Every structure is written in C-alpha cells, then in structure tokens.
C-alpha cells in the first residue's frame, strides 16, 4: 500500500510534462490521492453495506430454515408481525426504556463526577483511575459479577451488607430485596449505568477542562454565585459534550446484548431488540422475521444517528475552524 502511494505521490512532484498530458496527469493525481482511501472504503462496503442489503431482501421473504419448502415472497408480512407481535412490541419498548434510562442516568452521574474531578484535591489521579475501572471490565464479566456477586439474593454483596448493617443494630430480619426476579430490567440497567458512567464522565471532564476560564473568573469577580456560573456559563458550554456523550452512549446501548444475555437470558420480559432478533434467527430459525426486526432497529438507529451525526459535525467544524 505504502509503496504504491509513495510512487504516485512522488510522480506528482516530477517535472511538468507537455500540456496534452495535463488532464490525464491531473486525473492520475486525483486517483493518487484517493488510492490510500480505497482499501478501507471497499472493505467496509463489502463487510457492512452488502450484508445489510441482504438483510433487507430477506426481510421480505417468508423463510424459516426448518421449513425450507415454504420459503417464498412475504411482502410486508414480517414487518406487520414485528410491529404487532406482543413479544416484539415488548422488545421495542424494552430497548427504548433501557437506552433512555441508562443514557440519562449515566450522563447525570457522569456530570456530577466530572464536576467533582474538575477540582484539585489530594489523590485526584488515583480517584480518576478508580472511576475508569468499571469501563475496563469485559462486559460479559461485569454482567456476571453483578448477577452473581452483587445482586444475588442469597449471598450477593448488597444483601450481605444489609444483613451486616442490620446485625449491628441487633436485628436478624434485614430486608433482602431480590432485584433479579422482582425487577430484572432494573438489574440490567444498573449494571449498564455502572459501566457507562465512566465513559460519560471522561467526555464531560474533557469538556469542563476546555472551558474558557477567563469568563468564569470574570463572573466570580462580579460576585456570581457558583450556581449562576454553572447554570449560565458551564452548562451552555457543556451542552455539546452532553449531546455527544448521550448520543455515542445511545448508539452502543441500543445494541446491548451482553448484559441481557448474561443477567436474564432475555427472560421475564427483559429481551431487547438485539436479543429478540438473536433468538428469532438463532433458536427459532425465522430468518425473514429476524431480518425485518433488524431493519426496524436500523430505522430506529438512523433517527438517533441523524442527531448524533449533526452533533459530531458541529463539534467537528468548531475543531476544524480552530
């Protein structure tokens, strides 16, 4: 790759040739510029765009691999099924609730932590490192730990700690909540919030540290309260970073599979769309239906992604104008 680029790029600096070759040379130069880009572009189109086109086609087919004789054109039947089937509708709702809850909670917690870490205090670096740790645990491992070591109703850390605290006051009837069976979706949300808060904190902290301090100092001189400074200076500056963190987080959390797979295996009404699609094609072998659900996810994601792209773009332009 590099040698090809080197040759063509260097030829661009060679002595000017007769003018009838000028147009061809210009075209060659343009291709020389494009050349390094093409392998990545072509690879990505083949591996991501092509399969989606196939998904789109399969979504209009009646195709269950266990009943190959019945394969045929299905029109919008799969889509109607996805939008009317109670399980699929539940999966759509779970996906929305899960994504919104995780993104908003981890953004708020991340904002609080970022505001604290923005101040100088003893051991700030170590505290920051500790706070990043949850993001650096393999998601499957994190989900296993939350399920078995923290939330388990019999010997999990939370109920164990409750027993210990109650025993300090001489009580042997501590509350022993069982989140995994009474509120399983909440259990998934909590473990995801725990993993994603560090991500939000890092982005918001970088936002805080890029804040122009002279205006803040001027406002302090004028006797502005900390709340007024936060409300009228910090928050407007952070808006873009909040949007960026929220939208990038949403893109990842919409696709959450690991936590659902490990904590509930999609049971008790906690299956989100990725998990429901996985079940539909992997276990039920309903290829057409799974593809239609996949297309629905993509449409939903496009709606979110349009906002995401706009935010990234505005930050990007700001950065470029620098």
């Amino acid at each position: 790759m590099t040698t090809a680029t080197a040759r063509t790029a260097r030829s661009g600096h060679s002595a000017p040739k007769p003018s009838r070759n000028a147009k061809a040379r210009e075209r060659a130069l343009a291709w020389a510029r494009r050349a390094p880009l093409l392998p990545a572009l072509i690879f990505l189109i083949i591996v991501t765009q092509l399969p989606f086109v196939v998904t789109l086609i399969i979504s209009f087919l009646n195709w269950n691999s266990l009943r190959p004789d019945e394969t045929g054109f299905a029109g919008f039947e799969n889509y109607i099924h996805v939008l009317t089937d109670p399980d699929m509708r539940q999966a759509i709702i779970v996906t929305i609730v899960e994504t919104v809850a995780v993104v908003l909670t981890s953004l708020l917690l991340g904002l609080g932590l970022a505001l604290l870490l923005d101040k100088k205090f003893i051991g700030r670096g170590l505290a920051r490192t500790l706070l990043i740790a949850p993001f650096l645990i393999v998601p499957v491992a994190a989900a296993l730990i939350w399920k078995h070591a923290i939330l388990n109703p019999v010997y999990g850390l939370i109920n164990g700690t409750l027993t210990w605290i109650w025993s300090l006051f001489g009580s042997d009837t501590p509350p022993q909540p069982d989140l995994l069976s009474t509120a399983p979706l909440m259990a998934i949300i909590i473990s995801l919030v725990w993993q994603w808060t560090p991500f939000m904190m890092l982005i918001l902290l970088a936002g805080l540290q890029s804040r122009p301090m002279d205006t803040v100092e001027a406002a302090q001189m004028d006797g502005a309260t900390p709340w007024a400074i936060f409300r009228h200076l910090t928050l407007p500056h952070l808006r873009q970073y909040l949007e960026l963190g929220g939208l990038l987080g949403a893109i990842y959390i919409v696709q959450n599979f690991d936590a659902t797979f490990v904590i509930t295996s999609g049971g008790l009404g906690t299956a989100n769309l990725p998990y429901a699609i996985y079940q539909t094609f992997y276990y039920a072998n309903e290829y057409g239906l799974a593809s239609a659900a996949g297309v629905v996810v993509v449409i939903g994601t496009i709606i979110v992604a349009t906002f995401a792209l706009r935010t990234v773009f505005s930050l990007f332009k700001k950065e470029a104008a620098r």
Partner: protein
Amino acid sequence: MSTLTPAAPQGTPPGPTALNSGRTPRRRGKSRMDPTRNNTAAGIAAWLLALLFAVPVLWMILTSFHSEVDAATNPPSVAAGLNLDAYKEFFGATSGVSPWPSLINSATASIFSTILVLALAIPAAYALSIRPVKKWTDVLFFFLSTKMMPVVAAVLPLYLFAKTAGALDNIWFLGLMYTSMNLPIAVWMMRSFLDEVPVEMLEASQIDGAGLLLTLRKVVAPVAMPGIAATALICFIFSWNELLLARVLTGVMAGTAPVFLTGFVSSQGLFLAKVCAAAVVISLPVLFAGFAAQDKLVQGLSLGAVK
C-alpha cells in the same frame, strides 16, 4: 496538621489545646469564595463516589482469592483467608477444561483485527487529513454512519455467508468481522491524531526535498505515534470484549474468552470465587490496555471530537 502547628501558642504541648487554638485562624479564613475548603469537600465526595464505583471491581478481586465456601456467605466474609484455589479451578484443575484455547482465540482475533485495522485506517486517515481528497468530510461521515448500523442487523447474512463458505467457527473470519466493526472508529481517531501534525513541518520537509517515506517516518510518525498506539489499544479492547458475533459465528474450535465465560457458570455447587477469578483473568488485558491508553482514551472514544 502541620499548617496548624505554627498557629498554636508557644510551648503548648500537642493535644486538644493545640487543636482548639489552631481552629480559630482557620475559621477566619473560611468564606464562600475560599477555593481550598470547597476542594476538600469535593475531594471527599469524589473519593467516596470513586470507591463506591470501584466496589464491584474490588469485591470481584477479593472474592477471586477466597475459597468457594467463604465467597458465598451472608453477611460477606471480608476477612476470610486468601488462596489461589479459584484461579487453579479456572485453569481447569479439577474439570480438566482449560480456558487457554479461548484466551488464545481472543488474542488471535483481537490482534489480527487490530493490525488489519491499522493497515487500512492509517492510509485512509492520511487521505483524509494530510493530503485530503475532495469531499473528504463526506467520506469521513460515511465511515461513521456504518458504525451506527447495529451489528444485529447484519449478523444473519454474515452467518449464512460463513455457513456456505465454510468459514463458521473460524477465528480468522471472526477477526475480519472485528476489523469491519472497528475500522470506522479507527479512521476517525487516526484522522484526529494525524491532524495534529503541523502543516508547516510537512511543508518544510517537502521543500527540503524529503520523499514521502522519509516525511512519514521523520515528521508524521513522531507526532502521530501515541495516537496510533491509543487507537490500536482501543480497537483491541472492543474486539476482546465482543460477544454477539463470537457467539453466532464460532463454536467449539474458535470460541473466544467472552463465549467461554458465558458457559462457565455451572448450575450446581458453589462457583462464585471461580467466576470472579475468571472475570479477573479475562478483564486483565482490557484493564492493561485501557490504562496504557488513558491519556488518549477520551479523544479516542469521542472519535477525536473531544481533546
């Protein structure tokens, strides 16, 4: 404490008196605008929250060194004796099932895909930053838009293709999938890192007649190297963590560490210490990679939008 001592009256022995007299100048200095006092409160709050967030990680590490009996008690046996039994169990002491094949599979897929990502992303980023093509922003946003398509919407055709092509349960095919998963992010990260190469330096080296390879080695590489390293580490982390594709596309032979981990919980007997040990071992490469990339982590994760 040492700052208080000078304020204490001469000859007073250290003790409650010294503390009391020391408190007066401190209170006088207290005002709403005093930054040090604010910072102490913020520091305590930050530390408490940091510890709270770290508890599951610390508890996982502590439990992994407990015996199975001590791991599953209510209330928790914090001070129980430590041993390495859970780690021996994880590495197959009694079951005879070794995690090494899955760990090696994960390492193969992650490292192979990371190298391929770099080989594709560095030239692409070069054509989007240092010698940009026309409409380079459009290309950049096309890359990003492919990342926004959920994996689950493409996984069935990939599975069907792998099945017909005989690439099911093949670790190299999984590596190719991870390459496509990470390539858009890598192009974005890399572009933002290459953008940091000063234009003046590029022009100067051109005027001095340095060839492309020399310019890349002497001008671009020194500035972009930390960024390239961070990009590689982040791509490695995402590949190492991945579960859905690994679960669908691999089986007995090419199963990765996360797949191994999901099948690790036995329904009978005590297993908590063993699970914690497994979680620690499998998370270690990610923790190392993450902390190694810590300085560039934000810029990388925000696709270069935040510095």
